[in-house]
């Protein structure tokens, strides 16, 4: 059952991987989300990798993940009849989210101005890689390019090696989520005055927003950071953030002060119970220890940090991720395993919260396990509990049921390649 939360609202999803998450969020919240895709399927159905390496649209993992809970109709936008269908759907919709090239939908008569004439309530959100006005408005796009343009790539990777992207591209996901927020922001006043809105999301800006305000560093500190692998902080104060353990890596950070100092002390106590640690480490008042990762450090600070980091490294290498995390939890130490999918799947916390959702997938003849909802809502539980649609699976339901097309008209549209 879809959530009651946005029950009765309808969103047309004309996005590709620049924004598929927007419609997924709306589907999770209970809206009816209709994906409009070309008759041969959206490009998001051809993104590797594939389930069991079966290279067909039904096995595309991206599509399985981000189309769950949606419906699908086909429309060949090069065809005038199909464009008319989309315009008619927009007259019945509350939201439209799209990520075509800037100006494309306008050029084929599906721009905001046109659609708003028959539906002034429509909230129309365009996702753009670089905005809709600047020199890059028509730029060619790939996720890695926005990751670079937004400043995230420069900060990721080892010195002396190329800057990095994550193995699962992220930029389009941020833009999709931003499109969902913006659409819902515009929805609130619409309930009062009945008027829609035109929204442009800028993906590059979405990535700048992941930089933890590093943007202001050059202007306020007169320098900027560059990638430093597993270290964090400015060049003369940087500190190790990732340590090797027996079966992978552990993340932790030596720090003092009232919030984290107790954790550093607890880690030293733990190490002391298992073997010798230098006397100064045990007696130091870590709650009063101030050197931050962006401060000027003394020779003494550098020496102490180096010795403590080496001690921690020698300690962690003797244990597994799971052992270290379990004990860290007990002792309230600020640390985390560098978890992979297997670790996450086995995690007790997620299981205890019934996070994972099993979704029957009749097309594939099996059930799949999905990440559950992004929040637990007391009055209106959210989350998608149905598989994503096959290409055009809901043509009849939507075109005949909603728009009232006759079987003859449907046949004609099929024959002309419109749907």
């Amino acid at each position, binding site marked *: 059952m879809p959530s009651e939360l946005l029950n009765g609202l309808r969103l047309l999803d004309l996005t590709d991987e620049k924004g598929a998450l927007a419609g997924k969020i709306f589907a999770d919240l209970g809206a009816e989300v209709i994906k409009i895709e070309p008759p041969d399927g959206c490009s998001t159905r051809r993104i590797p990798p594939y389930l069991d390496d079966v290279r067909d649209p039904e096995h595309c993992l991206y599509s399985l993940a981000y189309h769950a809970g949606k419906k699908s109709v086909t429309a060949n936008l090069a065809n005038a009849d199909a464009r008319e269908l989309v315009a008619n759907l927009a007259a019945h919709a509350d939201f439209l989210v799209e990520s075509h090239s800037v100006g494309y939908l306008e050029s084929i008569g599906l721009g905001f101005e046109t659609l708003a004439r028959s539906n002034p309530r429509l909230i129309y959100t365009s996702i753009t890689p670089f905005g809709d006005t600047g020199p890059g408005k028509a730029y060619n796009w790939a996720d890695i390019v926005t990751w670079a*343009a937004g400043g995230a790539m420069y900060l990721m990777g080892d010195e002396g090696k190329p800057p990095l992207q994550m193995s699962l591209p992220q930029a389009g996901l941020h833009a999709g989520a931003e499109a969902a927020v913006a659409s819902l922001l515009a929805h609130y006043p619409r309930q009062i005055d009945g008027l829609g809105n035109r929204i442009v999301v800028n993906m590059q800006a979405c990535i*700048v927003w992941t930089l933890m305000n*590093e943007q202001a560093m050059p*202007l306020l500190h007169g320098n900027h950071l560059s990638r430093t692998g597993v270290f964090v902080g400015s060049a003369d104060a940087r500190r190790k953030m990732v340590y090797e353990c027996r079966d992978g890596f552990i993340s932790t950070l030596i720090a003092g002060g009232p919030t984290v100092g107790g954790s550093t002390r607890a880690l030293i106590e733990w190490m002391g119970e298992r073997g010798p640690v230098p006397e100064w480490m045990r007696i130091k008042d870590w709650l009063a220890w101030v050197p931050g990762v962006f401060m000027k450090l003394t020779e003494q600070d550098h020496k102490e940090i180096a010795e403590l980091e080496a001690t921690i490294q020698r300690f962690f290498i003797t244990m597994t991720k799971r052992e270290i995390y379990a004990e860290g939890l007990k002792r309230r130490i600020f640390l985390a395993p560098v978890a992979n999918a297997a670790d*996450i799947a086995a995690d007790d916390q997620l299981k205890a919260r019934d996070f994972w959702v099993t979704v029957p997938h009749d097309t594939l003849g099996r059930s799949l396990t999905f*990440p559950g909802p992004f929040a637990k809502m007391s009055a209106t539980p959210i989350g998608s509990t149905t598989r994503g649609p096959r290409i055009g699976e809901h043509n009849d339901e939507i075109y005949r049921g909603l728009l009232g097309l006759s079987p003859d008209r449907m046949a004609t549209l099929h024959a002309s390649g419109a749907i």
Partner: protein
Amino acid sequence: MSRQFALEGIHVLDFAWVGVGPITTKYLADNGADVIRVESAARPDVLRIGPPWKDAQPGINRSQFFASFNTSKKGITLDLGKPKARELVKRLVPWADIIVESFTPKAMRNWGLDYENLRALRPDLIMLSTCMQGQTGPNALYPGFGQLMAALSGFYHISGYGPGSCAPPYGAYSDFIAPRFSACALLAALDYRRRTGKGQYIDMSQYEAAMQNLAPALIDYFAGGRVLGPRANASDRYAPHGAYRCADEDGSERWIAIAVAGDENWRAMLRVLGANSTDARFATLSDRIENAAALDEFVGSLTRKHSAQELTVGLQAAGIAAYPVQNCVDLHQDDNLESFDFWHWLDHKEMGASPYEGLSHRMSRMPGALRSPAPILGQDNDEVFREMLSLGAEEIEQLKKENVIF
């Protein structure tokens, strides 16, 4: 009725701190909601002492890190450890449509400020609690911050040059995933309340929100046991795909990100680079994907002579996705961000003119705005306690003496 901002008239009492909670309420504040941040001078938001600082000098009102996440909000200071402070909070609750908090789960409960207690004062209250791992479960009290959550939720493991390498994303990455989800939950809850008159409680685990950005890899693992790992910039769709070294500028290394989809793009790229290739390893897309290491070396040798900026223009004109790998100095000079009017300089009470990130979207009607710089600590005590709660000047003085207002 004419409105300037989308959320005018919505009242938010904000107990959140650090990243996720404040960024969530910033969406509301920048769009016209009245957001009052409740802070404690005894234990200020750790971001208040986080860099970057004005003139690189730390100070409780000098952090742009804090400022950036707290535009358009008011700030009051209360020591919630004191019963009198909690009484004042309870007098503000009937005013609030939304309450947001991001402490570890036991804090609000211990103060008697949990949802059950607060909704007695405001029956249609919408309350969001956001913390690392959610309000329930064995690890609910997990102490952490975003860097650790980014490791725990799988992002560090897919970051690196190959098996055995780890080169994580910058900063508290997951802190920048969760706010968009929590803002959606709050805005949808507002709509539901409008239709039904019912408020509700939202338990947001930042861990579970982060998982949304890894869904394909998790589905894959559960179905077939495959574990996605670090693989540098390798792609199954594009080759070349990665960051390539360009000509140095002012003694600093410069890189360009390039993604080449098919054979036509590949030939166009070679033309722009003034190069030729008859290498059989690079003949087709699947050849190039298979021989990505050799390909990267070859492409890197070609880009090395070019300016990243100029090459971007040339490649883009030839139909290829490319952009310089920008640092934070570049971001402030970026024509596309400027054209979107992304950067804003606001005059902060103590920091003076400071650089703020703007909104990542633009609305044509009732656009949001950075309505004011972040509050300095306790900035709005007088307004809130005198005007909203009708406390007398003497009463306020007394509460300050007792460190209730603090």
